[in-house]
């Protein structure tokens, strides 16, 4: 009996250790630092702080919109070096009659956190003057969308360089034919494509079943696209190429990437269908970011 218990204990300990190992590794990756170089750490911190700030601002868009509306007149303040959080707090204070108590408390709490973040950011910028550019434009570690030369499902040649440079923003949606959530978002993606066209952007789909030009898969994909009324371009390429290998690292479908005119990835990939509000908002924010950067 004792031996059994001992075995059980050992195995349980092993499992716990295995899990702990997972956790530690995962956390490392979260920070995106990896290297021990100080600047990289700082860049990672800078990035995560900026992301947190954006997150705070995107949480209650309707409330913030009211705040920004109230702030219009005093917008010069943003540029004069005052802490952005202070600016927000002041604006909230001046427009407080427009909000309920709960809303006020919420806004103030967020604004306070933003103020703290801004303080930290300023400090970081002082130590690493190169940071703001790198973090906002992603120049420090831009990741390119893997280049490809392929065809669309109608057989027209498509080159990634030409495709991306022709559009202010290109949304790339990875899907496959028997993936229910993927198929579920096709009509919404088609609507998004039409909307993007007006802004000089485009949306393309990449159906992983159609890689290497599998004819049966292409026919099936076309059928599903037609049923869903999706008319935007769907592209396939060689599975051994750069982009083909890129796909082997996508484990959840649908996954959607936003690519700028230079072929660089904008933000993190969006995992999950954009029929979910959370995913749709994130995608829209990245699109807006890419278009704004293209104009600016």
């Amino acid at each position, binding site marked *: 009996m004792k031996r059994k218990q001992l075995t059980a204990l050992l195995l*349980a300990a092993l499992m716990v250790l295995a899990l702990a190992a*997972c*956790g530690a*590794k995962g956390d490392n990756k979260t920070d995106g630092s990896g290297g021990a170089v100080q600047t990289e750490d700082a860049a990672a911190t800078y990035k995560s702080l900026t992301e947190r700030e954006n997150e705070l601002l995107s949480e209650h868009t309707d409330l913030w919109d009211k705040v920004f509306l109230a702030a219009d007149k005093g917008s010069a303040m943003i540029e004069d070096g005052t802490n952005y959080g202070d600016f927000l707090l002041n604006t909230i204070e001046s427009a407080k009659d427009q909000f309920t108590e709960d809303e006020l408390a919420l806004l103030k709490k967020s604004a306070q956190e933003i103020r703290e973040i801004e303080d930290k950011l300023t400090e970081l910028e002082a130590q690493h003057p190169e940071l703001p550019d790198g973090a906002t434009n992603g120049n420090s570690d831009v990741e390119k969308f893997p280049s490809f030369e392929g065809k669309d499902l109608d057989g027209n040649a498509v080159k990634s360089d030409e495709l991306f440079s022709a559009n202010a923003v290109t949304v790339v949606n990875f899907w496959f034919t*028997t993936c229910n959530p993927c198929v579920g978002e096709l009509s919404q993606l088609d609507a998004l494509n039409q909307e993007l066209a007006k802004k000089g952007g485009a949306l393309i789909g990449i159906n992983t079943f159609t890689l290497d030009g599998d004819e049966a898969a292409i026919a099936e994909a076309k059928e599903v696209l037609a049923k*869903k009324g999706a008319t935007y371009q769907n592209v396939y390429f060689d599975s051994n190429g750069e982009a083909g290998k890129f796909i082997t690292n996508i*484990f959840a479908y649908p996954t959607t990437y936003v690519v700028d005119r230079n072929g660089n990835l904008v933000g*993190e990939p969006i995992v999950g269908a954009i029929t979910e509000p959370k995913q749709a908002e994130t995608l829209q924010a990245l699109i807006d970011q890419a278009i704004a950067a293209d104009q600016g």
Partner: protein
Amino acid sequence: MWGLDKTRKTASHRLARGRGWIQAGAALLTNLHLPNFFKGSLYQGAGKTVCVPGLNCYSCPAAAGTCPIGAFQAVVGSSKFCFSYYITGILILFGVLLGRFICGFLCPFGWFQELLHKLPVPKRSTKKLRPLTYLKYAVLLGMVFLLPAFLVNDVGMGDPFFCKYLCPQGVLEGAIPLSLVNSGIRAALGKLFTWKLAILLTVAGLSAVFYRPFCKWLCPLGAFYALFNRVSLLQMKVDSGRCVSCGKCVRVCKMDVDVTKTPNHTECIRCGMCVSACPTGAVCFRFGLGDETKSTKKTTMEEST
């Protein structure tokens, strides 16, 4: 301590005693690609075209094969196929060969629950909760077959209802490890994850108190294999000549089965606790085509492991 056992160290006893190791080995073989846990990637090689016998999520980074229940739903719910003949065939093969021996020895999620049951908290019997054991057949029929096959969208695709809404193994092996390493997946976690995490925690909590609650009440794979317990090549045999009706086997059985009355009960997971408990060596495993008269035969055990 084992001095008295010298006379009955049969293959059945060795098998029953080595069960913990076999479970560990099976869990490891089922999830062989361990480095993937750190990479946050999935093994996508040829092994994934084959089903493993136990309940083990396809989306576990280390998984060496496919979950039969997940694969069944994926095929039956796809617009291309009406029924998962190939996977049903594999399940029948597993069922006919081993029956719920798979639950007792090979299923990683069964092992997980058993390890939790070793936690030192007061244990409760599930005898009075027997009606709940029928729930798993409803899960099998409803969530694994009917809903994915018939509740389809405009392009004829159904959702894998069991995987999507109920399976705690998917959260344990898939969602949690993947989201720890992969920020995109972490960002995608929503209400569904919260719901299934709650199920996982509930099952884990219950496992500490009850023996294998998920296997008894909810598991559709266990339900499927249960239907084959009566006909499977691996069976429990009780030698009525040796049995002294002491009732030790009944008391020791954590699946609430009386092996002397119903050796091939649907709830029996062939864990062999009765084999170890029997003072006269009357209970044993038997593998092969049945022959009642040779019930004490101890041959061919190795084939089943």
